[in-house]
């Protein structure tokens, strides 16, 4: 008998879990899967929603699964269906249409819901008020895009990652967009003060209005956001991006332990061993990251456990990296970004170049990078993002990270050492070419004939040519010369 796994939620975590299970158990020998999804769409990639708003991607482009996915993968898929309650005693879930589904293992992948601050005008009863949107579901995209299409101003409430990516996407469309942020620092979870300031400047350059330290008094539909100081930020639409909260009501109602999120251990079990939770709704070791990377790592571990592919698999937390997906801005933040140079133990390097919209912060402990912010250094950002979470040490010279891997310039050929290889294809050194030249090979072709230099890929031809020219110019001294051509160059000059 195989195990019947019922997954509540067909978002990025739930869909991924089903894929990971089928990768290990393609014939459904170990695990039977039922997924219950509240939305009517096949699973899609929530990370890409700002790009759909921007118009860069179509809604179809965000699809994670095709129409045949469930059938081909032996997955029972119930779409547009909500779980009303979990009957833990009966090992079953109750659906909104009155049906019940029994389970051996239940996985809560219910995700998160947008959190709206208590500001007048944002709500209309339980629903969003007219002129207010969130960017959480696929269906949110066309609403936002339609306003942008009409050329009307938009305000984005919240200067976190999602808010900034949304604002950047709208600015790319030519929309007049203003980010209104409560704190005096953008992305305050990830960035320190100077980084926030550089980012604000970079966004302003990109056509995004940025207002920091704002208390919003209310939203006046059709007009804009009224701030505490009386200013009105014009907005036909307010996109609220003030954070999400784990969707825990189902678990809580079932009596499963819930704190901020549904509490799970290293086996991703709740306090009911038949019930698991992964993704945004779960809280592991005090953390609900709300990021897709950890959700997918959890899905992989849980698939190992549910299929028996690796009974020793454990989830020990993630080392997430935040990378802002905003055109023209290269920003990566990871680990402990708020540690200051005054820290008694950590080495903290900081370099601000606000004029060029660049900023670097690097936190190193025990030779490991434990925190970093990189704005405007794409190569360094990539290096440090890839290094983070590996066993490898930070560069001995941290400033190397800023330069990127460039080879040193080799300088004029006449200044090179005699042993320097000029023609790689035939291992011909400068010294051999000089000897051949002295023996009478006074042209590129003659040098080639004498040494084979340039007879392979032909790539050194220009260098050989330059050497021949330089030797010709140094002719008067050449007769007396032996090895040190740098000196001769000095004489000739």
């Amino acid at each position: 008998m195989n195990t019947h796994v019922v997954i509540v939620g067909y978002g990025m975590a739930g869909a991924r879990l089903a894929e990971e299970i089928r990768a290990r158990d393609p014939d459904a020998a170990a695990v039977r899967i039922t997924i219950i999804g509240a939305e009517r769409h096949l699973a899609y990639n929530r990370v890409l929603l700002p790009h759909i708003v921007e118009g860069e991607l179509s809604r179809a482009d965000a699809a994670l699964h095709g129409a045949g996915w469930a059938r081909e993968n032996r997955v029972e898929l119930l779409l547009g269906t909500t779980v009303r309650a979990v009957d833990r005693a009966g090992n079953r879930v109750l659906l909104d249409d009155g049906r019940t589904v029994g389970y051996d293992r239940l996985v809560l992948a219910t995700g998160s819901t947008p959190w709206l601050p208590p500001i007048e005008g944002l709500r209309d009863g339980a629903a969003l008020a007219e002129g207010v949107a969130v960017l959480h579901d696929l269906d949110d995209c066309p609403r936002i895009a339609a306003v942008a299409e009409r050329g009307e101003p938009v305000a984005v409430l919240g200067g976190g990652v999602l808010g900034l990516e949304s604002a950047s996407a709208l600015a790319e469309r030519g929309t007049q967009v203003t980010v209104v942020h409560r704190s005096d620092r953008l992305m305050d979870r990830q960035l320190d003060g100077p980084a926030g300031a550089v980012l604000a400047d970079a966004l302003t350059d990109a056509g995004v209005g940025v207002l920091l330290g704002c208390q919003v008094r209310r939203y006046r539909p059709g007009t804009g956001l009224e701030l505490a100081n009386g200013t009105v930020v014009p907005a036909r639409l307010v996109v609220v991006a003030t954070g999400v909260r784990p969707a825990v009501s189902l678990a809580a109602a079932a009596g499963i332990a819930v704190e901020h999120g549904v509490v799970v251990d290293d086996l991703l079990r709740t306090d009911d061993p038949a019930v698991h939770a992964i993704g945004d709704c779960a809280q592991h070791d005090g953390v609900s990251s709300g990021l897709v990377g950890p959700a997918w790592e959890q899905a992989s571990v849980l698939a190992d456990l549910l299929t028996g592919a690796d009974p020793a698999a454990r989830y020990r937390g993630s080392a997430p990296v935040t990378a802002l997906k905003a055109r023209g801005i290269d920003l990566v933040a990871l680990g402990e970004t708020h540690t200051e140079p005054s820290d008694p133990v950590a080495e903290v390097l900081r370099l601000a170049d606000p004029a060029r919209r660049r900023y670097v912060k690097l936190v190193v402990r025990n030779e490991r990078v434990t925190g970093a912010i990189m704005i405007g250094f794409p190569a360094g950002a990539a290096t440090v993002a890839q290094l983070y979470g590996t066993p490898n040490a930070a560069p001995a010279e941290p400033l190397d990270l800023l330069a990127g891997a460039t080879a040193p310039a080799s300088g004029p050929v006449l200044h090179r050492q005699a042993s320097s290889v000029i023609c790689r294809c035939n291992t011909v050194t400068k010294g051999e070419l000089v000897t051949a030249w002295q023996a009478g090979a006074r042209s590129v072709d003659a040098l080639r004939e004498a040494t084979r230099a340039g007879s392979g890929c032909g790539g050194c031809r220009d260098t050989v040519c330059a050497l021949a020219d330089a030797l010709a110019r140094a002719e008067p001294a050449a007769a007396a010369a032996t090895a040190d051509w740098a000196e001769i160059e000095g004489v000739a000059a």
Partner: protein
Amino acid sequence: MPVVTQVDTHCPYCALQCGMRLSPTTRQGGGPVRVAARDFPANQGGLCQKGWTSASLLDTQGRLTTPLLRRRRGAPLSPVSWDEALDFVADRLRELRADHGDDAVAVFGSGGLSNEKAYLLGKFARVALGTSQIDYNGRFCMSSAAAAATRAFGIDRGLPFPVTDLADAEAVLLVGANVAETMPPFVRHLGRAARAGGLIVIDPRRSATAELASLHLQPAPGTDVALALGMLHIALAEGHIDRDYLAARVTGFDEAWHAAARWWPQRAMRVTGVPVADMRSAVRLLAAADGAYVLTGRGTEQHADGVNAVSAWINLSLALGLPGTMGSGFGCLTGQGNGQGGREHGQKADQLPGYRRITDPAARAHVAGVWGVEPDSLPGPGRSAYELLDALGTDGGPRGLVVFGSNPVMSAPNTGHVADRLGALDLLVVADFVASETAALADVVFPVAQWAEEDGTTTNLDGRVLLRRKAIPAPDGVRGDLDVLNALAVRLGQPASRFPTSQEAAFAELGMASAGGPADYSGISHARLRAGEALHWPVPDAAHPGTPRLFLDAFAHPDGKARMAAVDHNGPAEEPDARYPLWATTGRVLQHYQTGAQTRRVPELAAAVPEAFVEVHPDTAARANVSDGDLAVVASRRGEVRARVRCTPSMRRDTVFVPIHFPDAQRANLITNPALDPVSRMPEFKTCAARLAPWPDLPEGR
């Protein structure tokens, strides 16, 4: 050894098969013939140092000129007559088959063998030995590229266009291909791309080729699939997808995109360490170019997910509308001299001549008909190269092995284990022209002719069939491989006519066996090649002009469309940890070829690069307590290799590089991971978890 005449031929080494001219020489040293470069399309008059010095191997000191026999284990190899050696081998082969069944004897071939030899070696295994156990070193070379190309296009021809077409392209992306070292004259075809700022190289090292590029992407080893998916993601997000081409010529895009949709560029950056901006630039260069090519090499292919890696690059190429388009395309750069022909004519465990599948009843019937045997008498598919070597001397595994033109104790991964397996054999027979490391372990060694001593065809990297010409007679005591196969077959009861010893007759029979197959050579003859015709396969009849460009009208699947494969990134087969925190990757240097059995015997080449080295970032070296010029150990979970430290500031700090050409304690394959690709059975040569440490036996005061 007088030269008969001046002869136009091709280089004995890599798949570029540079044109060269051999002529009489009176010069002392450097071999019995003089080598000159020839203006041939592939090399445009260029040769690398290996080519220039290739003649010195003809009379090298270590040349084998007499059969050698080890009468019992532990005894030395002693010279014997040909008859004694052949009788001994035939008797032992007969005994092994009688006692343990047909599959008790295995055959190991080579991408260095001519088409004629590769063809007759496969026939020898299937007909004279009746064994399914035959594979070859090309499994370690082209198998991932071949499997992915076949899956996508329906046919695998490394470059489905003449290599000279590249010269007109404004952008060329080289993925894991270090052509400036591995086939230097190839670089001559990249001039326009380099001048236009469109030469892009993907390599974990800043290789000699990367130095030539306008854009170098330097991913962590083993992360190519993520990089390709990230680039496909960018191609779609930035509107570079050729939708009309996809609709007309490709199936499977939606599924492939579902995989790539998960690889937004920032996620790919996290895994690969490649800046998003660089991925973007690379895609834009390819998309905007007047003519663009994507070419893969071993760097992206020699992984346990090598087929998926090549598929991912093919997907990117298809999304941009490159393959099968005049002036653009996708290809893989074949490595060994006859790596293309060697994979077409039946020395691979699952193949029959003409690139036919051995499991296909029609293919079996056709080939059996040409061979004059019953289709049912042909064995089925056997073990792949590493699996074959791994099974030697085990219960149910082969107990005898016959090796032609290969040096598996150097070239196989996890080679300490492979040496143990070879040691467990009842009989090891090696045919070679130098005493390779594998020959040194053999019970019987047959001294055979080399490239300039007999005619024979190869098929180069763009599928053109070439005739290498005999310039001088082989030394006394040396026989051709075809003579050896014939002599053994006759002793095993085969009619002599079934194993021709004439190269021309063997090629004619190969042509018949390949007729109607994907790689159809039936219209090619030595006579047409002697006349100088440029023939790219397929050439289905004697009047056919050859097929320089495949796929311009249709791909080779029944519906005429290319197929995208939905592939995802899995990462390397083993992970680093605190004990093995680095990645070790392997590759070649310009002066040496493959296991170095040939090039280490050429004085100029050996002097240029005499020993194994490890390229390492100075930081990483310092942490390992080694300095530039020190001897060091690179250790993995399987073994350790000795190499001299070369501090190289352009290296990634998490990666070390070791070349594959050096013997004994310097064998890079002592550390490589034999994890196999599930489709191609390619081992993971290019990525293993490793540690760098000082060499423990440092003499005092060194």
